[in-house]
């Protein structure tokens, strides 16, 4: 548990101590046992039915969910009073990471345990929980979440579905069409959003058996073909008034809070998928010979393996650091209080920027991973006989659902700037200091005895650069900055890279002394490669941002700042990449 709990977004202006962050090396024996149970479940119960599931034989999905129920994999977030385990986020993210190797099944699992269950847990009345939760956490019923409509996706609150109270006051009559509903084909319980009297956005618990709920046809999709995605049509659907979830007119809170959680969980899931894909790529590279050599012996292939290893290491470090942030914050809430879940959701909302970062960074890492894994396979990566082809297709959705990566990027930097303007984060004061530093020459007196000092200084510098750029943006556009999306996108790219490498470096600092000399060398290599790559991305975004915000002398000055603050001495980069690749090729999997 952390000594000091950082606020959301505070990492941009404060330095974290490595002892205060949670890392995968901090998992308890119990958490590791849960991970092992999940891995065995996937291997023994899902992989054997993989082809049937991909062929949309959903019986196997429904059966698999029941098995998950027996193993307790659906009850992690449910309160103890309702038969749940109420485990911490680190546990549920670890299980989410492990389940992700089940491909399409993991989408059903994630939708059920995430957006399908959490609204009921957080907002349900005791009666509602008594009625439905047991069925959900045992897997007797699958659940779905119906927010999106044909005319409103990213703009979720623009939903048209309507709810009108019946004359006898006993039912709401729902009408409308919900689009792209995961688990739509076999779910028994739907959390449906609709506007009461065309204005009060509200959530309803709708059973499949309620008159007027019609399940549409399965969508023909690019990937995750074994997951069910259908329209849900509400045709005068009758929902008893006691099935209103939360308060009338407060549905937007349910929708957004569910998404926050979905986002960090997605980060964990895609990290697991990245590890799996990388392993497949390495094994193939060791197997395949061209020019009388294993292609894994070629530098061009090794570099891919090294870069991916470093990125996945950063992705993993980020995900579990965020888990730790959330768990530490949630642990400060008194369990006995009446508004426990209100405070709980506020705690999660506090880290909404970090949740968005997790979603974007980790799904981008998966995108890069599956692309390179196809490339490593050459022509065989393009053909469905090899799993690389499916990984490539399955990956794509992760950058679209749970808020597109654009929406998440915009939200991330947008929220941070909004908090700064409201005075919740002292960004402006820090930004002034950063401007001053720009005008004073630097005397870099480096204390080489500090572990990972070069990386830490780079992170510090990137933070300074972010403050300079965001300060310039705010000065120029004031509260209109939200309309300058290109600039916000650049800003969030810097923020995302900062959080990712800072997580990677702090984790390395925390664990390095516990490792064997060989592993230490690999870890240093991963940190170097990750920091170099991240700094390049951040530098490019910063430059773009500078050109977009400033002109003339101010531009010249900021550009010099970009050069100064994106310097990272990555001497030994080649050896670092070869070290990583050699270790990964030897282990034939992700090595950390």
């Amino acid at each position, binding site marked *: 548990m952390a000594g000091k709990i950082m606020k959301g977004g505070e990492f941009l202006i404060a330095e974290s101590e490595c002892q205060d962050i949670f890392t995968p090396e901090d998992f308890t024996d*119990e958490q590791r046992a849960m991970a092992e149970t999940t891995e065995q479940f996937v291997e023994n119960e899902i992989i054997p039915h993989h082809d049937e599931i991909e062929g949309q034989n959903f019986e196997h999905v429904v059966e698999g969910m029941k098995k998950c129920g027996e*193993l307790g994999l659906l009850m992690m977030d449910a309160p103890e009073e309702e038969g749940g385990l109420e485990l911490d986020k680190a546990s549920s993210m670890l299980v989410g990471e492990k389940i992700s190797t089940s491909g399409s099944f993991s989408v059903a699992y994630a939708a059920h345990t995430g957006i399908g269950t959490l609204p009921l847990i957080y907002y349900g009345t005791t009666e509602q929980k008594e009625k439905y939760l047991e069925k959900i956490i045992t897997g007797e019923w699958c659940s779905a979440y119906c927010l999106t409509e044909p005319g409103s996706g990213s703009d979720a609150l623009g939903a048209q579905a309507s709810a009108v109270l019946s004359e006898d006051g006993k039912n709401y009559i729902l009408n409308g069409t919900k689009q792209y509903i995961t688990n739509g084909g076999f779910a028994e319980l739907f959390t449906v959003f609709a506007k009461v009297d065309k204005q009060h956005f509200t959530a309803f618990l709708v059973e499949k058996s309620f008159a007027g709920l019609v399940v549409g046809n399965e969508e023909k999709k690019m990937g995750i073909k074994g997951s069910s995605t259908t329209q849900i049509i509400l045709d005068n659907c009758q929902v008893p008034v006691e099935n209103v979830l939360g308060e009338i007119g407060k549905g937007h809170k349910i929708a957004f809070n569910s998404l926050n959680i979905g986002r960090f969980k997605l980060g964990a899931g895609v990290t697991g998928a990245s590890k799996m894909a990388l392993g497949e790529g390495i094994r193939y590279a060791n197997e395949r010979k061209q020019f009388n050599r294993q292609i894994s012996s070629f530098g061009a292939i090794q570099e891919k393996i090294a870069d991916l290893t470093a990125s996945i290491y950063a992705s993993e470090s980020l995900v579990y650091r965020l888990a730790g942030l959330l768990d530490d914050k949630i642990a400060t809430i008194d369990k006995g209080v009446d508004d426990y879940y209100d405070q709980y959701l506020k705690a999660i909302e506090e880290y909404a920027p970090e949740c968005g970062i997790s979603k974007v960074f980790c799904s981008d890492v998966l995108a890069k991973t599956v692309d390179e894994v196809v490339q490593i396979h050459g022509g065989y990566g393009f053909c469905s006989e090899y799993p690389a082809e499916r990984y490539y297709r399955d990956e794509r959705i992760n950058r679209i659902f749970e808020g597109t990566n654009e929406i998440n990027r915009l939200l991330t930097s947008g929220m941070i700037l909004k908090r700064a303007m409201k005075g919740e984060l002292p960004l402006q004061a820090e930004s002034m200091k950063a401007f001053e530093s720009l005008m004073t020459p630097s005397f870099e007196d480096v204390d080489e005895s500090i572990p990972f000092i070069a990386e830490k200084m780079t992170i510090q510098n990137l933070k300074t650069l972010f403050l300079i750029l965001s300060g310039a943006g705010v000065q120029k556009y004031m509260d209109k900055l939200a309309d300058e999306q290109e600039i916000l996108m650049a800003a969030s790219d810097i923020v995302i890279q900062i959080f990712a490498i800072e997580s990677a470096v702090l984790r390395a600092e925390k664990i390095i002394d516990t490792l064997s000399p*060989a592993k230490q060398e690999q870890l240093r290599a991963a940190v170097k490669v990750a920091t170099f790559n991240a700094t390049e991305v951040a530098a490019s975004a910063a430059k773009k941002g500078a050109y977009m915000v400033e002109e003339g002398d101010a531009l010249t000055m900021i550009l010099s700042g970009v050069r100064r603050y994106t310097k990272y001495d990555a001497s030994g980069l080649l050896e670092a990449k070869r070290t990583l690749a050699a270790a990964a090729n*030897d282990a034939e999997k992700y090595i950390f």
Partner: protein
Amino acid sequence: MKILVCIKQVPDMESRFKVNAAGNWYEETDLAWRMNEYDEYAVEQAVQLKQQVGDADLTVLCIGSDRVKETMKKALAMGCDRGFHIADDDSYLKDPFAIATLIAAYAKEQSFDLIFTGMQSQDRGSGQVGVLVAEMLGIPSLTTLVEFSYADGTVNAKRELEGGIKAKVSCATPALVTCQLGLNTPRYPTLPNIMKAKKKEMISTPVADLNPEASLLEVLQVTPPEKKGGGLILEGDPADLADQLIKLLKEKTTALA
């Protein structure tokens, strides 16, 4: 009924093994650790027996460093009632005899009705520990079991023999059985049971307290298997091929010397 199951923690067999500096075992750093596969069958059978007889107390025993407690917790989560850990950082240097004396020393005091072990460990593979323990305790041992049943103080079991032949055997308790692949399908611990296992008793005793005996065997050297060279395909017309072959045999072998 008092039941004991003995388990060992072994490396994930998919690991890349390296010989250690002393040359007498594999290097233990950077490995992932698991329960020995045969011991999983043993734990599963012991748990099934406990569930069958109802009034039973099931202890899991493991020798090794603190690291092995993680594997013991898995056995507790699978259904064992308590753990007995013999803390020994150098257990890998002990031979099967020395290991068996430790188990026997503990088991003697406890008078178990039935003791389960794996048929062998995946890393050392001596297949001796269970049999030696039985011998030291003066009780019968049934080895390589692929079927097991128990009723009224009698074990009825099937052993796997060479060539797929099975032998039906039976003995009265107290007894020791060693478990082979095919005996059962080990359960995976459910999440609620993993959490409950946290609260189960786990006693850790320093190995010195059990008066360990010296090993009778010493491992002199551990070596990885020799690397086999890849095949070589010669091309050309038959006369040319013969020349190439003779050249190779002369250069690389002693066949024509």
